[in-house]
């Protein structure tokens, strides 16, 4: 059994980005309440998980936390939980926050993997995406990280913006590669309901790119980075070498156990999933009153485990185990998907091809039967 991972959701941002539907607040007044609540929540889980081998601060924008609060959070985490040697300790950051002092603090706190929300290296695109930083800020941020000796730096990029030109996107990646990042997340812009972009789309003010262009962008991105030696190890993620994949995120896709702390965080352990209240206020109030902030939970049926294993596996280059396929109908469908070039066998695993990645959400719907032994 794989070791568990620990996730902490920091639900604060300098400002809300119009495309993002992760839960966060753009005001800081609840920060210290949140920290108290998170500390209280940690106590609830003390002793319930074995030693973690990943820690991931996500959000929100964890780098937005003022130095003393980040220090206090990390001290509390180390106090309450145990970690194996060589634990991957990641933090998501905004280029604007990565001052020399902040970079030094991260180093001092033991972070060994820093993800920078670069998103674009074109100021016009950054402004469209509602980002408060300029391309130059990202360049400086990454340089500072390198100067401070960070050896595992990831960059997040967004592509497929309305009207974006392919050459321009390839050029953006080229610029990003000049920093030789260990990790690249290249997200296709998704217009989510409930975001500003979602409302603009409904009112016809924003037209997402068509499916054919999406496909083109996806394939070109994958091919471009593969040529430059990057491993396309998940739909949107690339690693410079095998050891630079994000081990924490891989736990989600491999169905390893994880504990999520903070508002809206999700957890998974022994076939049971549970999740916290989304609202910061609700989360803080519950813990202040000594109650659990858990809002819902589910225990998976065998059919659900099957569907998840296949669907999550197909997001990664590792695919899923052949032993998932038991029935004759599924065997037959699997054969067909292989023949059509969406899947291939790799030892005792079934893995997606690049074409398979493109329809990774159709495959499980077609392949998986409900009634499973």
């Amino acid at each position, binding site marked *: 059994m794989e070791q568990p991972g620990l996730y902490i959701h920091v639900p604060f941002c300098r400002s809300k980005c119009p495309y993002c539907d992760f839960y966060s607040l753009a005001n800081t007044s609840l920060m210290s309440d949140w920290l108290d609540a998170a500390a209280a929540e940690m106590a609830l889980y003390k002793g319930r998980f074995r030693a973690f081998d990943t820690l991931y601060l996500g959000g929100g924008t964890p780098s937005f936390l003022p130095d003393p609060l980040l220090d206090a959070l990390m001290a509390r985490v180390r106090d309450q939980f145990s970690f194996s040697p060589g634990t991957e300790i990641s933090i998501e950051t905004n280029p604007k926050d990565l001052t020399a002092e902040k970079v030094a603090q991260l180093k001092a706190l033991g972070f060994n993997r820093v993800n920078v929300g670069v998103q674009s290296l074109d100021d016009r695109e950054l402004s469209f995406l509602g980002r408060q930083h300029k391309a130059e800020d990202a360049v400086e941020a990454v340089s500072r990280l390198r100067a401070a000796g960070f050896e595992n730096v990831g960059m997040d990029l967004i592509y497929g913006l309305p009207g974006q030109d392919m050459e321009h996107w390839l050029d953006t990646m080229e610029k990003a590669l000049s920093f030789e990042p260990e990790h690249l997340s290249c997200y296709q812009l998704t217009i989510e309901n409930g975001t500003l972009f979602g409302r603009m789309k409904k009112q016809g003010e924003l037209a997402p790119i068509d499916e054919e262009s999406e496909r083109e962008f996806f394939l070109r991105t994958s091919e471009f980075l593969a040529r430059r030696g990057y491993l396309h190890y998940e739909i*949107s993620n690339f690693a410079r070498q095998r050891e630079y994949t994000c081990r924490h995120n891989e736990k*989600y896709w491999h169905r390893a156990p994880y504990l999520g702390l903070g508002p809206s965080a999700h957890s*998974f352990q022994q076939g049971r999933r549970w999740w916290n209240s989304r609202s910061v206020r609700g989360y803080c109030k519950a813990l202040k009153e000594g109650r659990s902030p858990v809002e819902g939970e589910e225990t998976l049926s065998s059919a659900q485990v099957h569907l998840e294993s296949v669907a999550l596996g197909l997001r990664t280059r590792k695919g899923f185990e052949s032993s998932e396929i038991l029935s004759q109908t599924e065997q037959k469908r699997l054969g067909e998907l292989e023949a*059509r070039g969406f899947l291939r066998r790799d030892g005792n695993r079934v893995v997606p091809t690049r074409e398979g990645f*493109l329809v990774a959400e159709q495959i499980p719907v077609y392949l998986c039967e409900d009634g499973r032994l």
Partner: protein
Amino acid sequence: MDNIRNFSIIAHIDHGKSTLADRLIQKTGLVEDRKFRDQILDNMDIERERGITIKSQAVTLPYVNKEGKAFELNLIDTPGHVDFSYEVSRALASCEGVLLLVDASQGVEAQTVANLYAAMEHDLEIIPVINKIDLPSADIERVKEEIEVDLGLDSEQAILCSAKEGTGIDQVLDAVTEYVPPPKGSAEDPLKALIFDAHYDPFRGTIVSCRVFSGSLAAGDTIRLMYNNAAYRVEEVGIFRLAREPKKRLSAGEVGYIISGIKTVSDVRVGDTVTLDTRPAPERLPGFKEVKPVVFSSIYPISSDDYHSLSEALEKYKLNDAALVYQKDSSVALGVGFRCGFLGLLHLEIVQERLEREFGQSLIMTVPTVRYKFILTNGETVSVDNPIDYPEPVTIDNALEPYIRASIMIPERYMGVVMDLCLERRGVNSQFTYPTPGRIEIQFDMPLAEVIYDFYDKLKTVTQGYGSFDYDFLDYRKSDLVRMDILVNGEKVDALSQIVFRENARKRALQACDRLREEIPRHMFKIAIQGAIGGNIIARKTISPFRKDVTAKCYGGDITRKRKLLEKQKKGKKRMKMIGSVSIPQSAFVAVLKSESK
């Protein structure tokens, strides 16, 4: 008998028939207000939801007029669709008068005219009633003029009412007592009672609704159904309040029910005459017709495991619907099911919907078709109402298809578009008459196959709702028919085959391919849909595959949300039939007949 009035309400759809019936029932105090619910005579969910009446229903209303004279008013509620025109004709034959309801803002419409003619055919007293006078858009003067000119009725006689607000209801009741003639006929003569409906009661068996024209009957009598020539002992007679109310005796002029141990409604024929076994009437009441199915389609369970459950459901359903006929059927694509015959497409839809709702079945229905005849080279004649049974082409000497005489009534200004429509549907031998100025009646001989599906909808569209349509069977005529097959990714789907007129085959094949392209969702791979006659491909369309279907982000650990989306998609898939590796939604099997997209 002098105090009995038998009447019906006829109206264009949505002119307020059920609401008026509700008010009459309330006004006569048959039901306490607190127990009242809207559309009280429409018992079935499907009737209440669609706002239509499917089965005839009678109710006896006690009414005392201003002079203090007591009446028994028998209101017979009738279905309003051409599929059930025979049932309507039997209900009207049971009445002496009708209320012809006209909407005060819509005015006289197509169905109003068709209804008027139906009533006139039965020589009924017609009382025009203008309803919905409370509407701001009501234009009473214009509607009166239309009643005068379009219908040729005395508009001064028209009663103004608002069934919704309950105004003018007394006047309606008074007019019924005053103008509808009392029934004639002697209680001393041999019994003649007209069956206008029958329904099934799980405890009492078949309940026969009838109008007694002469003679009388009581519990203990032995009755004889004259057409069926079967005798039964009467257990109970009575009248319909909102529930059944037993009575000692039903006599000439009255409307009521008979319970006599008849097991299923299929043992009773609407339009048959009930007489006494001991003293039979010399002849039956006129107008009896054997109702025969005209539209055929197969019903299959979506999951082949559900065949037995479907079989049981049909058996139970049939207890209450004598018009449905069915027998076992099988298809390579869909497995084992039933071939069914229906009165028309509304009847088909009703059967489908009730099987799904009341009996919890998940069904696939195949393309409706008519019954063709083929004369083979060996001299034999075969009837074919299922494309699967289309004979080997080389053995066919002659093909015959059923023709009807269509009567279409429209305002003159729509003549051009209606002519075009009829000619496109292979109409021949046209005739025109002008019943009233500005109005035209067009008659055409047309193949039944051309009208069963969407002809009426089309007619209503091109005439903006002013076209009314009725038809009678003519005969079988020589035709040139072929079987058009559909192939999905190279695999023939027998349940999608149709028998079509050769000249139209290519057009119909393209149409079918187009509809399937709309109905079948995209898959991971390209899907080819082809229309073929024998080995010749005559139409081809393709459904392009998903080019990309994966979302960029799937973490923060929220796997639940993603999985639920997938589960929802899988659930949708379950409502589809897998043919090879293609999922075909149930709606696709009927959609191939539609000439236009939704």
